């Protein structure tokens, strides 16, 4: 492993290769920061453009786009409460309250440093632990994935909010929405109302935008605030460096990185789940769990670190087995194939300079993110908040409208956005939390499909669900996550 790394390093350090990583990171930040566009979209658009280029140059662009795009989603999530993907929902929970408290600059600083730490740990894990983590990921079958999904759903316990019954209702609404579309096991269409648009289920981008971006826009119009955020709120030096508080964040960075790497390395489980698990873990170990969801920077750190740690780790099964750990990893696999590189063990043997070069580029792009991301997020995107709210709200609407439209090129999605947004406004007014709803929509279908698969493989025997040590470990973790808030409450009494 060391020799291929040493051989790849001079190529990666060439000026044009570094420029590729930098261009990719900048493009990724822009794409990620615009609702409706994701790193996946950016890489998919980029692949045809890279045809005929040096493979390492093309992969440098993709590595930068991946890390930049993944972090870029945090910017509108924190500043405007617009999560571009489910992976940035946990960032909204504490990031936006910090913005409302006039600490947008600090929230962005926490998010960028946490994302850089997570992405760096992830890239190092990709380099060092790839073969080992592949063996771990191969221990996961449908039964284990079912329990992983339940573990993710158990994190709802930390997101329910002050009113447990309303939190439970929100979760159940999410799970019910998650059943919409064609049931892949039987081919039955459920709750599609004979509309083709619902055949693949309710579009998650429409749901996220409606749930999180719409209510604050209406609040801004309702309040008719004719002033914007004070310039000082975006001033980084005002609250000092986040690194000065490293003792406060270090345990969260370590734990969230580990969670992100492990979840990212599981094929198909990565993406949004790691940030929820990391957020839940940070809240669980916190001495002040009641401050989460109200502007605790540790919540932002956990979510962004978990999210960043997921990035390179999701490439572990992609590069070594050809199984993508996330949607972005799937597109990158396509990018490798375009350049004649077939993922799998042979890739490491036949093209070690490229595969290890790509791993190093993931590492460099993570480090570049600290410089480019910090500057872009605070000095450019953050300035939008200085606009008067009555002007900012329509501007956000213009961006999310085209963002939502561009997902499926459908005006039907715009009508759905209006309906979901209207409903979300009242859900929020009545204190129903939105995060458990999203978690239900994302994890419900995974849990159901994996349960069906596990039972089919196991001949309908329920024992198949608890047949492996990994399943039992997941069950223990799920029970532990569910009981932690209860134990905490009992202790406080």
């Amino acid at each position, binding site marked *: 492993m060391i020799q291929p790394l040493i051989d790849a390093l001079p190529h990666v350090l060439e000026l044009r290769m570094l420029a590729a990583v930098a261009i990719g990171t900048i493009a990724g930040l822009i794409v990620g920061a615009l609702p409706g*566009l994701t790193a996946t979209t950016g890489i998919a658009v980029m692949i045809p453009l890279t045809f005929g280029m040096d493979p390492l140059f093309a992969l440098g662009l993709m590595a930068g786009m991946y890390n930049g795009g993944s972090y870029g989603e945090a910017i509108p999530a924190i500043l405007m409460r617009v999560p571009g993907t489910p992976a940035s929902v946990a960032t909204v929970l504490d990031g936006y309250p910090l913005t409302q408290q006039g600490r947008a600059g600090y929230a962005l600083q926490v998010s960028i440093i946490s994302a850089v730490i997570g992405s760096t740990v992830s890239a190092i894990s990709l380099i060092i632990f790839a073969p080992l983590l592949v063996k771990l990921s191969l221990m996961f079958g449908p039964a284990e994935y079912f329990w992983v999904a339940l573990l993710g759903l158990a994190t709802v316990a930390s997101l329910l909010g002050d009113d447990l019954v309303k939190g439970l209702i929100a979760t159940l609404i999410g799970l*019910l929405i998650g059943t919409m579309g064609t049931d892949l096991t039987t081919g039955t269409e459920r709750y599609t109302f004979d509309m083709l648009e619902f055949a693949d289920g309710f579009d998650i981008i429409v749901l996220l935008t409606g749930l999180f971006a719409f209510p604050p826009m209406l609040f801004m119009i309702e309040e008719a605030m004719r002033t914007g955020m004070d310039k000082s709120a975006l001033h980084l030096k005002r609250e000092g460096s986040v690194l000065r508080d490293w003792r406060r964040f270090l345990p969260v960075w370590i734990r969230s990185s580990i969670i992100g790497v492990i979840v990212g390395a599981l094929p198909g489980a990565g993406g949004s789940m790691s940030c929820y698990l990391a957020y839940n873990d940070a809240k669980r170990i916190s001495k002040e769990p009641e401050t989460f969801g109200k502007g605790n920077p540790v919540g932002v750190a956990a979510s962004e670190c978990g999210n960043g740690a997921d990035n390179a780790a999701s490439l572990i099964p992609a590069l070594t087995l050809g199984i993508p750990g996330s949607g972005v990893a799937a597109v990158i696999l396509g990018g490798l194939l375009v350049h004649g590189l077939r993922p799998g063990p042979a890739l490491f043997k036949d093209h070690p300079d490229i595969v290890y070069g790509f791993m190093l580029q993931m590492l460099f792009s993570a480090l570049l993110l600290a410089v480019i991301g910090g500057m872009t997020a605070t000095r450019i995107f953050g300035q939008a908040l200085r606009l008067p709210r009555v002007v900012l709200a329509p501007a956000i609407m213009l961006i999310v409208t085209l963002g939502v439209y561009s997902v499926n090129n459908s005006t039907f999605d715009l009508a759905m956005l209006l309906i979901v947004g209207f409903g979300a406004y009242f859900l929020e007014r009545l204190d129903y939390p939105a995060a458990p709803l999203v978690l239900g929509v994302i994890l419900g279908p995974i849990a159901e499909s994996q349960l069906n698969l596990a039972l089919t493989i196991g001949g309908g025997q329920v024992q198949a669900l608890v047949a492996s040590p990994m399943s039992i470990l997941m069950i223990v973790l799920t029970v532990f996550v569910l009981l932690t808030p209860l134990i905490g409450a009992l202790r406080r009494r």
Partner: protein
Amino acid sequence: METDTVALNPPRRSAEITFAAALIVVAGAAFTAARAYPDASGTYPQALAAALGVPALLVMVRYLRGGAEDTVILTHPRRFLTGICGIGLYILGVAWIGYILPSLIFATLMPLACGYRHWPTILGTAFGTVAMVVIVFNVLLERPLPDDILAPILRFLR
């Protein structure tokens, strides 16, 4: 000033009860619809629908017994109506005549409707945002815009 719109602004208690009742109706409808699905596809949504009805009923009972502060739902009903109607008309406009014109009109009229009159900021933001969105989505990333009556002009410019 807002008293004439109080009919549009129900007390919190009524809103909670109405919303919980609506959830029970939705749960009932979802349960009934799920009974028509084959076993393997129907059991899970049926269980979820039944499970949704129970906490919704709990919430309704809680507020029927008087568990709510004496507040209203909307802080400014007129502005809320202006906002929701404006957004609704904007989305209709985008569907019918394209993205650019409705966006410019919406981003200009909405601040005016809220009493903001600083024209350079309003127009700068409206034109700047539309230009940025069109350049990034349509020109750089080649994502299609909704069918636009200004499409011939855009093609000419490109």
